[in-house]
Structures are given as C-alpha cells and as structure tokens.
C-alpha cells in the first residue's frame, strides 16, 4: 500500500517559511496517496521558479526542466509512456508568461496530463517582478508605478480553447485543493488547475488574507453547472476570477488515443526489432 510518506523526500524544501507552495506540495502528496498512485509510475515535470522546485520535493520521477517549458516535456513523457501519471507544475510566470504558447497548444491537444500552476501573481525566484497575471496597477520592481497591462485570464482561455478540465484552488484550503488535484489527476485529458499560492515575501497585496477575503467557493454553490462553458466564463467574470472549485469538465478522447500512431501498449514498452519482412516492405516503398 502506498502511503503519504512515499511521496516525501528526505531534504526539506527551500521555500520561504509560510510560502503557499508548501501546501500545494502537501496537497499533491495527499492526492497521490489517496488515489493510491505508485511513486514509480508518476512523473512530475516542472519549469523554473520557486514553484517549479516542487519536482525536487515530491518523491516521484521528475524533470525540473527549463523556464516555461514544462508542458512540452510532460507531453513527451506522456506520449512515450501513457501508463505513467504525468503531472506538470510551475509558476504563473513560467506557465502564463514565457510558457503561455505551450499552454495554449497543450490544452487544445487534450494531452492527458494534470497541469498545476502555482499562481502567486509575481515572479518569486527572481525576487519580485510583475507577472502576466499580476493585477493592473500592481507595483513591483519592474512596475514601480503599477502594472500598465491587463492581466491574462488563463482559466477563461483554457475553457475557451478546449481544455477538458479546468479548476482553481487555494493554498489556504488544503482539503479542497487535495480533492481538486484528485479529480484533475483522475480526469482523462488535459486538466488545468490554477492554484492561488501566495508569495509571502514579495507579494504584499495578494496575500493569504486577501484571498480568504475575496474567494468564492464553488463547492458552496449547489446550482453551478460545470459542464457549461458559458456558465463558467460568466461566473469567473462576475467574481473577478477569484473563485475556487471545478469550473469546467468535459469528456473527450485524449491525444494519445487518437494521435498519429496511437497504440494501446505504451510506446516505451514496444519491442524495437523490425522483422525481415517489414524491412523488405520498407525498402520496397522506394523501388
């Protein structure tokens, strides 16, 4: 039996005390244990940032890749062996800044991975610059007079462009977050989970308290219909996107089931020998 401990590593995370990323790690460990996943069958792929260090602190296979590039690596891993549970994770800068192009394309392909964005509305590791989801007017070292840019709306963008599971969680509510992670991992297809995970060191605006004050919890709305895209968009809009819960879910084939060369057996387990008659057939193509 897999237990929580199996997903823990010996060394301690190097995050600042109180950082939201700690609870995200804990929730992911719980979710994995609750689902009875095997650490050896999981791969956690991350980009670069404080948040992206989570792949070093979670006991599974992992790739701590390059800034903004978690999703293509995760895609490669999944397509190589679709029996693996693949989770991609990173920060808002990583995923919605430099990496937003991969985000758009991975979600529309419906690759069967869970993508957790630890969104603190700031660049943490590089010590506090404005991120693409920082609020308009947000002051940081790179926007001393307040950000002049409209923040991106990743959840809405995901919903509109074909993500089949879209949810939002909050590092201040580990129980809901754990449940959402479980649902996201169970979901067959691309699961996009944005987690408000406050940076206690550099973001003095979007703090745990701030989120607690503003957050609307979908679990408390019994009439919410998470199969309706426009319902989700409208709801997000009404609440300034400060909502937690499962926003949208849809069942459709995942990429590795329908892509060129789709196989039941994971690619990594295939026999590589090419029988004589096949090599002759291949040659004959050129005669």
């Amino acid at each position, binding site marked *: 039996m897999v237990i929580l401990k199996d997903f823990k590593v010996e060394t301690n995370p190097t995050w600042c005390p109180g950082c939201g990323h700690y609870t995200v790690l804990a929730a992911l460990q719980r979710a994995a244990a609750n689902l009875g996943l095997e650490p*050896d069958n999981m791969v956690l792929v991350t980009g670069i940032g404080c948040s992206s260090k989570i792949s070093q602190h979670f006991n599974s296979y992992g790739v701590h890749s390059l800034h903004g590039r978690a999703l293509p690596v*995760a895609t490669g891993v999944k397509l*190589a062996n679709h029996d*693996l549970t693949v989770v991609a994770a990173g920060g808002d800068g990583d995923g919605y800044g430099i990496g937003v192009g991969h985000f758009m394309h991975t979600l529309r392909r419906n690759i069967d991975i869970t993508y957790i964005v630890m969104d603190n509305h700031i660049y943490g590791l590089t010590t506090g610059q404005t991120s693409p989801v920082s609020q308009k007017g947000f002051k940081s070292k790179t926007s001393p007079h307040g950000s002049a840019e409209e923040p991106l709306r990743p959840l809405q963008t995901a919903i509109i462009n074909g993500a089949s599971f879209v949810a939002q969680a909050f590092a201040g509510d580990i129980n809901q977050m754990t449940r959402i992670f479980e649902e996201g991992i169970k979901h067959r297809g691309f699961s996009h989970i944005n987690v408000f995970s406050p940076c206690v060191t550099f973001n003095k605006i979007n703090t745990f308290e701030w989120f607690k004050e503003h957050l609307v919890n979908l679990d408390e709305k019994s009439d919410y219909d998470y199969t309706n895209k426009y319902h989700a968009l409208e709801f997000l809009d009404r609440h300034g996107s400060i909502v937690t819960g499962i926003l949208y879910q849809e069942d459709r084939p995942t990429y590795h089931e329908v892509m060129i060369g789709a196989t039941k057996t994971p690619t990594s387990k295939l026999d590589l020998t090419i029988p004589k008659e*096949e090599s002759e057939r291949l040659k004959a193509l050129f005669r």
Partner: protein
Amino acid sequence: MKDLKWKVGGAQGEGIDSTGEIFAITLNRLGYYLFAYRHFMSLVKGGHTNYKVRISSEPINYHGDDLDILIAFDQRTIDENFYELKNNSIIIYDSSKFEAKTPDENVKVTLCPIPLYDFAKELGNSIMKNMVATGASCAAVGLEVTPFLEVIDDIFKKKGEKIINLNREAIQKGFNYFRENYPEIKLDLPDKKGKEKQNLFMTGNEATGIGALNAGCRFLAAYPITPATEIMYNAIANFPKFGGKVIQAEDEIAACMMAIGGNFAGVRSMTSTSGPGLSLMMEALGLAGISETPLVIVDVQRGGPATGLPTKTEQSDINEIIYGSHGEIPRIVITPTTVEEAFYYIQHAFNLSEKYQCPVIVATDMFLGMSKKSVTDLDFERVKIDRGLLLKDDELLKSGTGTFKRYDLSSEFGISPRSIPGQKNGRYVALGNEHEETGYETEDVEMRMKMMDKRMHKLNQFNPEELGVYYSEEDEFETLVIGFGSTHAQINEAQKVLKEKGLKVAHLQLKILHPFPSNIVKEKVEKAQKVFVIENNATGQLRQLIQLEIGAHVKLSSILKYNGNPFTVNEIVDGIIRKV
C-alpha cells in the same frame, strides 16, 4: 564512368517535380544508377524550378556539372540552365508556348521544339504536357515506352483508370512525336549494371527517417521547415506501423523539449529541423547536456543566416551546432556524406546518444537531404541497437529502496546507469540546475566541479575516427583536400580529375566533426604540402576547426561556396589548380 544528364525545368507549380520523378523512377527500376537534384524557390507557384537526373552505370552521389538533355517549359529554363549544356546536347521545349532562344552560339545545341502544351490540351488537361515531355525524353534516350507506362500504372493506381489512360496516352504521344520528328537524335545511356527493380530510389531525408525507425526511434516531435519536413512526412508514414508516434509541435522549442521528455521516459526520440529551428533549440540542448538525457537532433542545413535562403543548400550551421548553447556540455556532431550514410549514421547517433547520455546532432543539408539517389541496398542488420547503460528492473530492485544515484560519480568513464520512469527504485529528478549524485540541486563548489568533469570527460573514451572518416588511401600525396558531409562526391570526382592532370592529391572526408578526429587529420595534414578545405559556407568553419585542433594555419586554404548551390566538380578542380 559514362553518364547522361537530363533536366526538366519550368515554373513552380507546373508539375516539374513529378515529371522528373517519373522519368527517374523508371530508369531506377530499369537498373540504372541515378542521382537526382531538385532546384526550387521559396514560393509556392511561379519562380523557376528544375529537376536534374544524372544516369550512370555505377552508384553516384552527385548530379554532375553539365547537361545532355534539357526539357524546357519556358525560356527562363533555357536562360538559367544553358551554361550547363554540353556541346551536342539537346533542348526539348514547349513550342506551343514560346520560340526558344539560345543565349550562347558557341555551344552546339540541337533544339527540338515539341508542342507539349497543345498536345496536352488535345488530351483535355494542360498538366499532361509533363507526360508528353516524359515520352519525348524516353525516345531521346532510346528507351522503349513500356517501362514508363508501368510506372504510370503504379503511381496513379489510386486515381483510377481514366487518369492512368490519359497519362499513358500523353507519354505515348510525346514518344511518337519525338521518334517521328527527330529520328536521328538518340543520346546514349550508359551501360545498365544494376538489376531490374532492385535499387531503392530515395532522398537523404527518407534514409534518415527509415534509419531512425530501424534505430528504434519511436517518437518524432518536429515543426515544419524546409528542407527538413520530409523527415517528418516519412516518420508519419512509417512510424505508426511500429507503434511509433509523431507530433507536430507548436514550435521548435517545444519539439526539442518533447524529444527530451520522450527520451527521459525511455523512448528513443528525436527532432528534425533546419537552421532557424536549430537556433531555437539552443537552450533545450543545454538541458539535455546537463541532465544527461539522450537526444538526437537532425539539422538539415539550408542557406542562412536567419530565414536566409530557405530552399537552398549550405553547410553553415556547424559553428552553432558545435558551440551553441550557453555554458558547456558534451555533444557529438555527425555529418553523413551520402544517402546511405544518412541511413546508417542516424542509427549510430541513437546508439551514441544513449551510450554517452548526451545530445547527438546529425547535420546533413538540403543537398543531401532532398536529393534522390539509387541505393543498391540498405542493410537493416548492420547497426545493432545498443541502448547503453539502461538499468534492468531486477538490477534496480536489488539496489534497495534508498535514493537512486542517477548521477553516480563512481561510474566508469563518468557514465552513470539510467533508470526510466515506471521502474521501481529508480526515481530521480532530471534537471537543468547543477546537481548532486541523486539529481538534487546543489551549489556546492566541490560537487559542481565533479559533475562538470564527469560530463565533460565522458567522451574521452570515444574515438571519433572509428565512426567516420573517409580517406582515399594514397600513400604519397602533396595536396590534401578535406571536406565534410555532402561535398564528398564532388571532391571525390574532383580528385580523379586532378590526378588525371598529374597532381598528387589525397582526399579526406570527415563524417564526424565533434569530438574532432584529430589524429588522422593531424597525420594527413602534416604529410601534405598544401591543404584545401572545401565547404559550402562563407567563413570556412571546418578550416577554423582544423586550425583550432591541429594548427597548421599556413598550410590551409579554403575553397568556399555560399550561393545556395552545391559545389560543382569543376569549381573544386579550378579552385585547387589556381592555388597550387
């Protein structure tokens, strides 16, 4: 070696390529050895394009300097290709469209007007003019029409009876017209030495694709780019049968990162691209290097820099391939010289990449990648799959549940055995930061040095000469000619010409550039009085490598070409004669 050179030219989108293809496929099936070169422009319709076929009695890797038969669909084809025509060559042209003018009276050329377009119109489809021209070509080289008709049957099988018959008729029309109107013209084909329906007729790109498949590559992630896209098409056509997967990535960064992910997860994975894409992969290359993840990149080079000359050939990415990516990583750079080698060397690339757990870049170019040749055979057994130090499940099980040392420093030659996801007890994090033996991030100065040394010294035990150097085996010579990659054939032919002229010339062709095969290059360079380095680029990148690795600056002299076309034999001969 007797040969005959034939070329068809016209505006892009007119079906020039398929005319060339049908002519060439037929001759290949008959047992001739061919080399076909496609010239085209970076636009979809209009613009001049041509397809040249050299026909020989022996295997060849170059389409030849000159030309015996030119099929011209427009005057521009004549203008642009006239300089290639030999004395006593012929031009078959579409007399329903224009009156041919020959730009130079000194070259004796026979004009053979044929109303190609009108014939086609009669058949009800102007595109048939290509087939009329094919028929005329058949007559001009003295072949019977039947084998051509058979090829038509095969190629248009799916299109139905009607199309087949139309094409057959068109060929027959062209054939008959030529026989009747130019009975005296017959350009001799060389002896046919190959067996019928035996030789394969394929491009370097196709050989790369099939080679990768045979190497056990089961995942290609790529983004379309000329002249590399064909590798992707080939994979799409052939990987699925073997459970292999192909994904069109959103860009080259993603393509390369996907291939890294695939390799990490235990599948031999590659990406194929050309210069612009390669430049975008520089950061990813470093990740493969430091995380010791195997990775194979194929760069089908084209004219640079930036968008440069997208449909022309060049060998100018070598510097970036060897030196690109910030910081320092081990890597192997292979430069196959022929279509056959494109097949075999991609297989070595996968073996080396897994053996040394480092990126391997295979650099071909548009000339090698998109030219087609008759290949006697491909030996699918020659290069055995060797997956390097991949741990077996039971080895890992025995190791206990303690943390797996993916980057074990005590490993021989610095190559630590790998586990792949799904294996028990093999968990680790592959990362782009400096790390400890377990893969955990570190900034410790001692560990940093040890890990850098581990990575940078991995290749010390690898002897690049084993993999790839061609030497012409002269015992005595004065002049040494060095090239790499696709220039092989022209240098080879040039060497023959120079020898006939009495020069003592040896030829060294490098098939690997990094690690540099210093020993043999040094030995030969030292023996030479003068060394010519032949390259399809403007700065002499190989010459610079030789200077760096060997020295001998004063002996070295560059012969460079960077106008987008492959070298002619004559350019090499001339270049050398002018300087010795």
